[in-house]
């Protein structure tokens, strides 16, 4: 279901965790809240789930046009998956998943047969059938994660909220689970918001990426658009792999990604800069060069094809010319001093 957030503020003592968040999320979307630690993304997620509340009178949250700002977590029907899963250690997998149904008041509680059917169905959905009598301590990290997911889904949540869903897993499981979550979301179609500090994860997984910094939203959009057209210097830098450079004789800074730099022979008169190759490494079809600018002593990364590397016969210590690819008109970022 759709979520609408208006002018949300949250202050802890003198620290402003959220400073006026406005956001609209369409139904069935998979949304990533992306930002460095301390950017307010987890606080925002907890407020969406009713586990925390905005400063009184500062902000409004609507789920499917219903104002839920003051509604406590128990009434809000949002499925929340915690970073460390928060499974009930003393209950079996089955009892964990059935928890949300078992605590319902008598007149709306399903009978035990339908609860069992629902739990079995959910465990199948998260591919954990047969593990229903295990305790959480007998499961792997990835399995616990999926129990937490099934438990949150048992209450038919209006929206699903995931706090750093892959944060506590090792790299291999992370990748598998990421792929699985993508298809899983397609299958169930519940509006899902997840928090992450890993830009790769956000860009690969989400339909919409929300980039947060210091309690504010920097940019909202589809991953491709955000990557190609960063709105602020912060977004440009945060998405990684970016060079800051200054054209000779001019004070303003440029942001340019490694693949947007063209490498020419030093003698080429069309080069914008000259630089020396400090380090070079080729993996697969592309090669990464680390170049040092002789006049400013800054280093710059550039990606070129393996083929070009071989054709030009480049090696460490060589002098080359650099040219900013004219095919990338978005290269120059606003001439602002970067925030970090």
């Amino acid at each position, binding site marked *: 279901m759709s979520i609408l957030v208006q002018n949300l503020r949250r202050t802890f003592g003198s620290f402003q965790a959220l400073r006026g968040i406005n956001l609209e999320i369409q139904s069935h979307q998979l949304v990533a809240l992306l930002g460095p630690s301390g950017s307010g993304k987890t606080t925002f997620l907890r407020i969406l789930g009713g586990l925390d509340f905005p400063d009184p009178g500062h902000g409004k949250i609507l789920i499917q046009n219903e104002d839920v700002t003051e509604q406590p977590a128990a009434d809000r029907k949002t499925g929340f998956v915690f970073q460390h899963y928060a499974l009930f250690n003393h209950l079996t997998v089955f009892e964990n998943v059935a928890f949300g149904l078992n*605590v319902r008041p008598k007149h709306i509680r399903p009978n035990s047969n339908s609860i069992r059917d629902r739990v079995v169905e959910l465990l199948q959905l998260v591919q954990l059938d047969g593990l229903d009598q295990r305790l959480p301590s007998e499961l792997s990290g990835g399995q616990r994660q999926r129990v937490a997911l099934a438990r949150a889904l048992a209450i038919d949540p209006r929206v699903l909220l995931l706090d750093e869903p892959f944060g506590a897993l090792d790299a291999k499981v992370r990748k598998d689970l990421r792929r699985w979550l993508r298809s899983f979301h397609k299958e169930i179609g519940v509006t899902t918001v997840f928090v992450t500090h890993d830009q790769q994860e956000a860009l690969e997984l989400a339909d919409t990426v929300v980039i947060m910094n210091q309690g504010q939203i920097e940019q909202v959009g589809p991953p491709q658009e955000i990557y190609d057209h960063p709105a602020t210097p912060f977004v440009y830098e945060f998405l990684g792999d970016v060079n800051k450079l200054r054209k000779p004789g001019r004070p303003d800074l440029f942001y340019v990604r490694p693949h947007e730099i063209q490498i020419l022979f030093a003698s080429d008169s069309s080069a914008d800069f000259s630089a020396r190759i400090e380090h070079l490494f080729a993996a697969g079809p592309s090669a990464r060069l680390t170049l040092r600018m002789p006049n400013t002593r800054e280093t710059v990364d550039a990606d070129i094809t393996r083929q070009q590397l071989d054709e030009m016969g480049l090696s460490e210590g060589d002098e080359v010319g650099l040219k900013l690819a004219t095919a990338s008109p978005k290269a120059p970022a606003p001439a602002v001093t970067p925030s970090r």
Partner: protein
Amino acid sequence: MSPVSRSTQDPLWTRLLLIGAAVFFLVLFLLVPLFSIFAEAFKKGVALYFEALTEENARSAVLLTLTVAAITVPFNALFGVAAAWVIAKFEFRGKSLLLALIDLPFAVSPVVSGLCYILVFGANGVLGPWLQAHDIRIIFALPGMVLATIFVTFPFVARELIPLMQAQGSDQEYAALSLGASGWQTFRRVTLPNIKWALFYGIILCNARAMGEFGAVSVVSGHIRGETNTLPLHVEVLYNDYNMVAAFACASMLSLLGLVTLLLKTFIEWRTGLRHRHS
């Protein structure tokens, strides 16, 4: 026990010396006194031992001790859970003051706390005349002894639970809430099972102290034989009467209580140890 790595192991003579010293003190200060209690108690035969325990004043002392514990322990268990819950799961102003207050009974001598009750509830105390006018007896009666015992055993349960609940955090409670559980359901189904062994541990320590408390109770009891003497007070009375067999017989009961407490304590540690290894 995990194997000791050679790099941290001391030479043989050091180890023998340290172990020997530990065993020596253990025997001298623990085993010998414990043994002598039972030896003294049975000195004049088993019959006299049981007579000392079943004699009227002794029976009344046991009954009173059990009554005081039966009121004190549930009260302090409830209080301890509530205090630990508030301190571990919420942030509020005055939290450190509350923590200090919970520790107060550990810091104050029990005799002093008993005297404070006399100053408040005694005949010449602040509330004394009013209590007398309404014919309510607190000092030199059961209510005073219960109050004094509650005060002295205040911290046991709370102190046991606070670090555990702080370490567990609140995520499971939040998870329960977001799944639609009410506050009471969250406590019953999530919090309580997570703390049950620590709670049990706190309760047996609280119980042992409640039954064994001497100082505070001694001040407010008035030592009326057969009426306001608890078991520890009864032991003192008998000892002062040079009735050694009876004194040690009653003391042996208190010692048994201590041994049972230790056994339960070990059992709980073994249980929770199992659970930790599991997870």
